[in-house]
């Protein structure tokens, strides 16, 4: 069983790491965009947009990621047969809308932290809603949003392990399968843990670098 040594199991673990990275990168980017759109909608002057955003944010933040994934993969096709997605796409959609709900709250909080006087100064100069946000509010809000957004991205790395529930073979699931084959859970999961650290630690470093740059 173990004749090739542990080295033979490294390529599938690295492939799992690659897929975990891909999941976090794509759902992190899509989640950030969703978060920006819904975070701004949550506090925009148009009431129906505010309501839609509030429902999205509050409902999804209250759901376990597992339920979001299981619902998209198993339940959604029963409602809409057209919405039958493969595992990878389901994983990305599920993590993205989950991330979007959290990022929306981070952006909303950051925008609301900007003093009202900034908005008034922009308006007094004749800037409309778009100009005001693009050049005055968002550049300041982004700086405030970075530390909590980095923290959330790290937790997204960990949340990505949950997509194994729909059978998507990312790092956790790869480790699980391999430990069943080689019967070496200690070695296998130690390597998995080190690989997770290698993925998430640079994100913390990025956050620390950014905070130092601001200081």
């Amino acid at each position, binding site marked *: 069983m173990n004749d090739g040594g542990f080295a033979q199991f490294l390529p599938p673990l690295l492939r799992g790491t690659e897929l975990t990275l891909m999941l976090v990168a794509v759902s992190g980017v899509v989640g950030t965009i969703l978060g920006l759109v819904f975070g701004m909608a949550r506090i925009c002057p148009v009431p129906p947009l505010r309501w839609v955003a509030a429902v999205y944010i509050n409902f999804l933040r209250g759901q376990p990621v597992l339920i979001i994934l299981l619902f998209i993969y198993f339940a959604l096709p029963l409602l809409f047969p057209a919405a039958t997605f493969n595992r990878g796409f389901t994983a990305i959609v599920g993590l993205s809308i989950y991330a979007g709900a959290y990022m929306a709250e981070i952006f909303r909080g950051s925008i609301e932290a900007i*003093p009202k*006087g*900034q908005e*008034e*100064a922009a*308006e*007094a*100069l*004749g*800037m*409309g809603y778009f*100009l005001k946000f693009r*050049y*005055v509010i968002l*550049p*300041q809000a982004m*700086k405030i949003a970075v530390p909590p957004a980095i923290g959330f991205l790290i937790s997204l790395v960990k949340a990505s392990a949950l997509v194994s529930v729909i059978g998507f073979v990312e790092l956790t699931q790869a480790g699980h399968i391999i430990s069943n084959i080689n019967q070496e859970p200690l070695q296998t999961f130690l390597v998995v843990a080190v690989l997770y650290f290698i993925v998430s630690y640079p994100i913390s470093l990025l956050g620390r670098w950014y905070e130092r740059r601001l200081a």
Partner: protein
Amino acid sequence: MITSTLNGSPIIEVTGLDKSFGSNQVLKQIDARVAPNEVVCVIGPSGSGKSTFLRCLNLLEKFDAGHVVVNGHDLAASRTNLNLVRRDVGMVFQSFNVFPHLKVIDNVMLAPMKVLKLGRREARERAETLLAKVGLTDKADAHPRQLSGGQQQRVAIARALAMEPKVMLFDEPTSALDPETIGEVLSVMKKLAEEGMTMVVVTHEMGFAREVADRVVFMADGVIVEEGPPKQVFEDPVHERTRAFLGKIL
């Protein structure tokens, strides 16, 4: 109502202005006019409604009834393009509100480039001229957090002037300043007044009002109690309320 003694149709005309915050009516049937090139100082105790009145003039504060006509545009009319009107109405705030993420020169260039669509070079020339005017040429590349309050307020004045407004509103521009930097801001404002800028200044600086204003308006409890040339209001006020206020502060 006493109307301006200066010539020309008013640049700001306020009639029957009402404003309440909840059950607290802060402006009661205000009528006022400001003529081109006129400098009007609004004085009065805190809570008298003078800042709210000023903020209604560019609709940073929405009012409940009445009309504010600026440059021929009725702010109460729904068809009025507010952003277009605000281009011609500069505003300076008590708390400066300079943009902390932009360098001084970029603070001044932003609105001319984005709102007036000026080219970068033209906007830069305009900004440099204005920074020279407020005495901050050497601070063009500084960040606002490196400046004193008085310097930040002068940046804010240059930023407002960069839109080449027809009228400037000042909302207690020196109230948040250290005493030693008040003078530099007031002297910039005085220079503006001498150049013929139309100005409405809410202030507690009675010396400035007396020296620079064409007309002083005294407000209390949401109404204009009296108004007139500074000499008359300060030395021979008609109303008891005005006398009591001036007696306390002069």
